[in-house]
């Protein structure tokens, strides 16, 4: 009985693991950017248009909109606000401090090309998408 339970448990873990991998969302940058650990607090700061306080190597954020669901989850899990609230916060910052507008990308290939052309820029994608990209490395698992 114990053996059977163990076998079932192992099978369940094996079955679940790929799902977890598929659902992972990661922070990415171009290979060789040198960016190491960033706190979620600092990632939020960068995506609000401020400079990174954790790493001088971080350049600019890029909003990945090719998967709207992940974008919404990013706003919820990292930025802790709704899309409307985030948009208005960025507008306030642009017209309050003259901050740059945050770049938005709709295609994975475009995101790949932008990140490799702009070393130090960061974005977020689902973990599986990293395999489809070239010269991109994972900086951090976000969730």
């Amino acid at each position: 009985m114990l053996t059977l339970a163990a076998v079932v448990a192992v099978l369940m873990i094996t079955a679940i693991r790929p799902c977890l991998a598929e659902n992972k969302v990661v922070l990415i940058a171009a290979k060789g950017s040198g960016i190491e650990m960033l706190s979620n607090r600092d990632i939020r700061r960068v995506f609000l248009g401020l400079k990174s306080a954790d790493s001088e190597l971080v350049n600019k954020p890029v909003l990945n909109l090719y998967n709207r669901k992940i974008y919404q989850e990013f706003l919820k899990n990292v930025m802790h606000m709704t899309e409307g609230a985030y948009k208005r916060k960025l507008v306030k910052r642009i017209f309050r401090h003259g901050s740059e507008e945050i770049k938005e990308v709709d295609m994975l290939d475009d995101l790949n090309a932008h990140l490799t052309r702009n070393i130090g820029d960061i974005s977020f994608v689902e973990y599986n998408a990293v395999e489809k990209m070239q010269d991109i490395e994972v900086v951090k698992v976000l969730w």
Partner: protein
Amino acid sequence: MLATVVVVIVLWMCTPVVAEVKLNGFASVVVGKVTEGDEFLADFPKTGIYDTRLSIDPDSSLGLQLSSYFTTDFSLIAQASVHGAEDYDPRIDWLYLNYYFSPELSLQLGRKALPLYYYSDYFDVGYAYYWIRPPPDVYTWQITNYNGISLLYEAALGQWDTSLNLYFGSEESEDNELLGLLFGASVDETWKNMIGIVGTMANNWLELRLTHMQGLIDRKISGVSVLNDIEQQFLGLSVNLTIDRLLILSEFNSYRQSGNDVEYHAFLLSAGYQIGDLTPHITRSGFRQDVNVLGNDEKHHTTSVGLRWDVVDNLAVKIQYDNVVDEGVVVPILGDSKSITLGMDVVF
């Protein structure tokens, strides 16, 4: 003002390389009319006034912001705008150099918005708030900009985003529009030696803003000096809450001049609720200045209800109803009124 423009332009020209230039803009097209009463002073600083005829001028505006990044740490920010209430004459809102000493600390030199109120910095950017315009009872400032220097520190403290802004500067306003309307004569106003501090703290659901400014004021009415080196002080507190889809906004300000009994208090309390792309809201605001030694009083309050609809990214449509009760005796602000306005705000 002219000195600031010259200094900034010279510094800009002396900079060898312009690395990157960004252009952003905003526009508001608002049409409205008074449905009961005679007139509604919707925009105090620009004296945007609705009457019983349908009008597009009092709240409509267009602004362009140019940001030149010489390096990642050094930039020039300029913003010019036109407003229907000012006959679409262009004016320079911002013109300053910005330098980052560190990711948290930056210095600004030039012309900026005077950050007295919560919405001072983006008062004209209608897209950034849910009203047609910030409540006029609170935004009764006759001086909206300053030329000077500013130091801004922005950092995270635990779960809080914090900022501290120190500034010093002055501003001269010849033939000030708002004071001209209130006094019925030409008024030249100078605010000088302004020293201010603005502190903010925000987490996921709570935002606090505390501001204090003091300086000296000179005023001439029809060329006759009525105030000279009079000290003035402004104190403001904003508390904003975001509880799921419920937004609660508040602002409380007080102003006084030392050496006399000129003193006023203003407030706003507002609630909005986000339902998808719609945000219905209700606001109560008020202003009270009792009769003082200069023989002036001003007392009014407004109840507003409205709806914001985020039609698409960067575009919002709004409708708002304002009921103003004017209780000023010596200095009324155009009397009681009920008004309806419909507007569209974009940013680009």
